[in-house]
């Protein structure tokens, strides 16, 4: 082995520390510190009259569990989360299967599909707000024309439809992301099982459920994890399109936390809501990682 200068010894050894150091340093400053800060904040509240943050003990945490707004926004968050995830999974898988071909034109189609990802979600929200406008929107007009919606029904102001109206923007924007992940998975599958199935004359559905799905299980799990983490924090679409309305029909936890923090300067309660969200996601994600046997 060649002689090395002492300061390079660490890079020589198989010790991961120097490799991970920059990552850990950034995460400690920008992720651990905010976490501690939020925990500290959740026991304090900004007293607007005295212009300073004051200790309030467990008040925020007690309020949290007696807050009907929190429970309703938690419900909405979960509905949004599961609906969006399910739709994006199913649609994403269907599209990936459809586009997993090498025939001419499919490369272009895959490229066009990814266009949705480069639009800022805040702008996507505005786009769909315009398209779903009951008076001027192209989408409302289309739905009216085919008779799915009466002109008297404003999508984003009808309690039963508003969430669907917001979900539409989310599903439109992120389904292509799922397609990318699934395509990556499908392209990496070994061809042998398919050849065997062909010889047996298995139907398309059998092939999909017996071969593709089981082999894709891990890919799907990772997709659920990555997308789920972001979905739980959904903010931009709702903020832009409905402000949580009508009433509280689309009012999510992240919007609640945002409003408490920025609109009403209740930093303590905002931090408490954020921590609640963090705890829920942490528990769900870890449970999922354990159940789906994801190993990194």
């Amino acid at each position, binding site marked *: 082995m060649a002689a090395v200068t002492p300061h390079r010894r660490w890079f020589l050894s198989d010790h991961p520390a120097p490799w991970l150091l920059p*990552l850990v340093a950034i995460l400690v400053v920008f992720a651990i*510190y905010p976490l501690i800060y939020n925990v500290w904040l959740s026991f304090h509240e900004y007293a607007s009259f005295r212009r300073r943050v004051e200790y309030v003990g467990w008040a925020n945490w007690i309020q949290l569990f007696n807050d009907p707004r929190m429970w309703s926004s938690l419900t909405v968050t979960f509905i949004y989360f599961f609906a969006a995830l399910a739709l994006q999974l199913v649609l994403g898988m269907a599209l990936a299967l*459809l586009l997993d071909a090498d025939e001419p034109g499919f490369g272009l189609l895959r490229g066009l599909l990814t*266009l949705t990802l*480069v*639009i800022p979600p805040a702008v996507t929200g*505005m786009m769909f707000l315009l398209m779903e406008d009951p008076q001027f929107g192209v989408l409302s007009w289309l739905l009216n024309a085919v008779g799915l919606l009466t002109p008297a029904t404003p999508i984003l102001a009808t309690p039963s439809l508003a969430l669907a109206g917001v979900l539409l923007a989310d599903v439109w924007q992120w389904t292509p992301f799922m397609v990318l992940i699934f395509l990556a998975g499908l392209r*990496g599958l070994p061809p042998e099982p398919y050849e065997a199935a062909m010889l047996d004359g298995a139907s398309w559905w059998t092939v999909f459920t017996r071969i593709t799905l089981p082999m894709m299980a891990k890919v799907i799990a990772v997709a659920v994890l990555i997308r789920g983490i972001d979905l739980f924090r959904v*903010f931009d679409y709702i903020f832009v399109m409905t402000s949580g309305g009508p009433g509280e029909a689309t009012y999510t936890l992240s919007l609640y936390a945002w409003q408490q923090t*920025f609109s009403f300067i209740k930093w303590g309660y905002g931090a408490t809501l954020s921590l609640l969200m963090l705890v829920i996601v942490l528990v769900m994600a870890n449970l999922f990682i354990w159940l789906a046997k994801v190993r990194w």
Partner: protein
Amino acid sequence: MRWSRSTSVLRQIAAWLAVGVFFFPIFFWVTTAFKPAYEIFNQPPSVWTFDVTLRNFEEVFGISLGFLRQQEVLPGGGNFYMAPRLLDSLIVGLFSTALAVAVATLAAYALSRMAFRGRHHFVNWVLSTRMMPPVAVAIPMFFIFRDTGLMDTHLGLILVHALMNLPLAVLLMKSFFDDIPAEIDESALIDGASRWLIFRRIVLPMAKGGIAATAVLCFIFSWTEFLFALTLTQTSLKTVPVVSSTFVTSTGTAWGNMAALGAVAMVPAFIFILLVQRHLVRGLTLGSLKQ
């Protein structure tokens, strides 16, 4: 699987239709950029035919598109002059991507090649830093930035966007490294090369495509991020998503101008996506296919 000719044609049609449905909002948005106000609010909505104007682009980018010019554009632009904001977005996007990819690549190599106790949990921890709601990060960041002078600077936003992208970048890079057989490293180690040398001379060049794919995703997430960019900037820089909201005025929303900025802002990110599409389609499994 072999497809009969008729199913192949059907599949072609279905694929074009499906992508067409997804593409329609973009088509509509881009055409909105070319519409004067009365066309945007036409009833029924004008989809295929409409009067064309370049006015929205002239205002947003402060240029005169000579032969079609309808009115003098103010020097320095009006309120909707956003061209410098594209540059801000580009600076933040490129540098935060570079930082995130550099840090993530180093870490991912170690995570891919070196077995150590708690590696699985370490990756989980890295991933969990993405679970924090942005609101919860924004307030402490605001105070850190106030005290360090990073407020309203490119550097500040670059750091935060890099942080935001690190978890995904680490996972992605790890999966790309996992695709490269570890035997290569091991034989080089036996030949006396150092880890650092192997990383720089052998593994990194082999993972070029993966790095490109990771970089593009990081860039897109930075390019489209709203909340941090809103909270941590004031007047000296603004990114595209933030200025997009300034088209909402007290006497109406300038949809045409907003769409013009949006349409142009799609271009750089989309070019990057197309360039690395091949690698994206390979690597986005995040290592879940390896056994």
